């Protein structure tokens, strides 16, 4: 038992055995405490890691059974970030749903919006009516988002093994992507930009130049990651062979995304069931054949290059689409109001306000009905999965014919993939647990929703 009476780091007796709260440099006390009262000093130790542990990738709680430094059993405790987004969406209109689901997996907001919106559009039967420009903008934003998400994965993964330079340069580049998001959508995160029927706004002037500048810069910067990490002996020593999970294991546990592709299986929903016109872009599915954390790192690094290729193609297409619509032509679905930059920041477009308040009473009624009541979606259910940076992300959208989602359930890849934590880390060293989890890249906002 601890010798000092520390309120925060003491020990207590429970029916399950002695409980120690450790705060560092107190291993001797624990070892001595374990042997006290005729106890067995070799007794197994169950360690609670998290939910506030900096190396667990968010508010993830790990319950590890240790023998020395070897993990004999590992379990996850999740739910610390559960915010009831799915339930809340049942009390908002179909358009407002995007505002909620964008907050789930906060590192890939556009993907959350996209899968939900695709489900709603399928139920509305307007999949073929979405303007081409909206589809290209969606692809552009998703691929930018894939880069920013993979950068955070590599950055935090690097930080967790002590490679702080990887972290600083990762977040440096991510900042550039967030700047682009801010330019295009007005927000750095939680955009609610992809809406049923299209996207919220047209591209602002100058956005394409910024995007091209970003692509050119990234083409110089991405090789820096490769130079820093790919053959770095310390980096490789920490990642090689860690968190091994082969193809059979991935399929049994439902793992998708970079983890599945690191086994050499080129499964990518952008290729196998294309949406938003992905079949018209030239890019390759990246795989690796080591089934380990290092392979997943390389897959993500290579995928960023592929995303740059798609972004370039999308930017070229957008350059030829100036002035084209970005929202479905059906005025019973398209959001009536538009935003504009005023002297005091972004707000309602004054032209639109003038139109509904001064020119057309029908326009006012129409605006009011669509904004307060919203449109109705025919009864039925749809599931349109997309390839998020972490794997198959799908929204099971159910409508009862009303103006609100009857049920929206998100099959989040982080939630599913985290199940493999035990398989990947049992029998390994405790330090490798962190690497294995970082290679799954779970985002707790998406896990807990």
């Amino acid at each position, binding site marked *: 038992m601890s010798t000092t009476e520390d309120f925060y780091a003491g020990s207590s007796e429970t029916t399950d055995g002695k409980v120690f709260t450790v705060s560092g440099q107190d291993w001797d006390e624990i070892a001595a405490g374990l042997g006290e009262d005729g106890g067995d000093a070799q007794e197994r130790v169950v360690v609670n890691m998290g939910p506030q542990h900096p190396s667990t990738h968010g508010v993830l709680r790990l319950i590890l059974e240790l023998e020395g430094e070897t993990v004999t059993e590992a379990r996850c405790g*999740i*739910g610390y970030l*559960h915010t*009831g987004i*799915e*339930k*809340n969406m*049942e*009390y*908002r209109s179909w358009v407002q749903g995007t505002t909620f689901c964008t907050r789930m997996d906060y590192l890939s907001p556009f993907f959350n919006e996209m899968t939900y919106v695709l489900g709603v559009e*399928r*139920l509305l*039967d307007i999949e073929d009516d979405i303007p081409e420009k909206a589809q290209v903008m969606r692809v552009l934003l998703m691929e930018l988002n894939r880069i920013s998400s993979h950068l955070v994965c590599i950055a935090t993964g690097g930080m967790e093994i002590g490679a702080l330079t990887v972290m600083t340069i990762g977040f440096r580049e991510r900042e550039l992507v967030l700047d682009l998001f801010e330019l295009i959508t007005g927000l750095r995160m939680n955009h609610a930009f992809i809406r049923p029927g299209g996207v919220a706004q047209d591209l602002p002037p100058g956005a394409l130049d910024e995007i091209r500048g970003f692509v050119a810069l990234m083409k110089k910067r991405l090789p820096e990651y490769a130079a820093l990490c790919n053959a770095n002996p310390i980096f490789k020593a920490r990642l090689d062979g860690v968190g091994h999970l082969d193809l059979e294991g991935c*399929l*049994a*546990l*439902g*793992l*998708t995304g970079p983890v599945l592709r690191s086994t050499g299986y080129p*499964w990518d929903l952008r290729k*196998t*069931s294309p949406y938003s016109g992905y079949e018209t872009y030239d890019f390759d599915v990246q795989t690796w054949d080591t089934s380990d954390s290092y392979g997943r790192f390389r897959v993500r690094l290579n995928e960023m290059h592929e995303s740059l290729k798609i972004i370039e193609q999308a930017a070229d297409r957008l350059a030829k689409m100036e002035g084209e619509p970005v929202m479905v032509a059906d005025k019973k679905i398209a959001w009536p109001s538009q935003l504009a930059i005023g002297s005091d920041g972004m707000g309602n477009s004054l032209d639109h306000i003038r139109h509904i308040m001064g020119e057309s009473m029908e326009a006012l009624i129409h605006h009011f009905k669509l904004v*307060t*009541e*919203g449109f109705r979606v025919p*009864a*039925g*259910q*749809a*599931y349109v*999965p997309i390839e998020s940076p972490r794997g*198959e992300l*799908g929204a*099971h959208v*159910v409508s*009862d*014919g*009303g*103006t*609100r989602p*009857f*049920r929206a*359930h998100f*099959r989040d890849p982080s*939630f*599913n993939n*985290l*199940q493999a934590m035990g398989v990947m880390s049992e029998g390994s060293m405790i330090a490798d647990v962190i690497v294995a989890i970082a290679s799954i890249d779970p985002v707790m906002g998406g896990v*807990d*929703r």
Partner: protein
Amino acid sequence: MTDDNPEITAVPAETGEVRAVGERQGMFGVKGSGDTSGYGGLVAPVVYPAQAQRPYGGWFDAVADGLDPLIDAVVIHRGEITFHISAANLVAAAKLLRDDPKLRFELCAGVSGVHYPADTGRELHAVYSFLSMTFNRRIRVEVSVPDADPHLPSLCGVYPAVDWHEREAFDMYGLIFDGHPALTRILMPDDWPGHPQRKDYPLGGIAVEYKGGSIPPPDQRRSYS
């Protein structure tokens, strides 16, 4: 005005759509006020896509052939196929989906619970999404159980991937997956009362006051459905 007039509530389903579950009343979300417009008296059935008849078209028939004796109903809507399967047949169907070389559904993407309070006798639905990577096919399997006896077999033994998904469906809807190795709450705290995503569980919330006005919590605002 609808409550005391049983003739109006018995609205026939629209042509071709026969699975009516519950009904929708009124139009503007106003209840119990002196609505003199007449729209408040509207009653419309809530109609879900009806059962499909053979041939289903494309590869749908091949999958239906493989599962044939285990299927209760097939619904095809917006190009997606849903097999309604009874709880008793679920494990057999899942084994067939996974092992039959003509089906080869390697991946179970998960379970999503849905609560239909008006679907009397089968209020709770568990909706599975299966993916065949070999043939690039995706199907949905729907199992419905009564609220009074929310038991269905666990698919953990066939598809270990559904472990957490089933725990989530139990947590949120109270669906009991018999045979699950550890069916405990996963997102809510262990001692949480009730199953939060059921339709009879309130959303909760408090009114927000802003500049003298008071905005009620979302579940007490006007609802147009």
